[in-house]
């Protein structure tokens, strides 16, 4: 897929673990792992909103479009 997720990078910058983010946004670790590893087929606006709110970032900081992929 040409959309890639850079959640791990933002998490590293914020010094937050996946477990902590999971607790804060109310999304299971399993689902966040799917997102982090790029296996996700879609992301809900509500999930994206919650992640951006907790990580204090923009959707563009997490999602990237790469035409080559």
């Amino acid at each position, binding site marked *: 897929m040409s959309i890639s997720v850079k959640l791990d990078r933002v998490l590293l910058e914020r010094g937050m673990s996946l477990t902590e983010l999971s607790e804060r946004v109310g999304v299971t670790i399993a689902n966040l792992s*799917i997102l982090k590893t790029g296996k996700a*087929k879609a992301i*809900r606006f509500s999930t994206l909103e919650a992640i951006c709110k907790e990580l204090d970032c923009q959707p563009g900081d997490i999602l990237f479009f790469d035409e080559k992929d």
Partner: protein
Amino acid sequence: MRAIGKGSLASILAAGLHVTRIILWIAFIGLAIAMIMVPFAVGIMSAVDGATNLSIDGNVAVDAEDYINIGHNFVTFAVMLFVVDRLLEILKTLRFGSPFVRENADRFRGVGFALLIGEGAKFAFGFLSLVTDTDVDINSQFITWLAIISVFVLAEVFSEGARMKEEQDLTV
């Protein structure tokens, strides 16, 4: 009454199909034995006749008609067994989990191809019957072709359903 889950219509249907499968297996094994024994039918009859001193009247000669009939029934039972087996697998997923899995689409496709082979065999045996000038009653019905098309459509529905389920499962 519920359609799926434990104690549902699907469970009753599965129980019925299990019984049907046993009956079909018995018939299938019987036919397999008959296929092997038919060439020796005359010899067996003569041996029985000699051993028991019973006079067996009637025509015991095996002709092309018998072979065609046995062959046709053999293929029919094999197809039925395969279809019942696939349906049981599909019902299992219906009772114990989600039916929208790729395996079920493949199973429906398999059923479609099996029915198609069954109909093809009918034509082949019908042709054999014509060639050998025997009177074997083999006819293809419109409803069977309708069922074959429906099964293939159903396979595509399940394939699409499985794709949607996968997408839903991978939506965060």
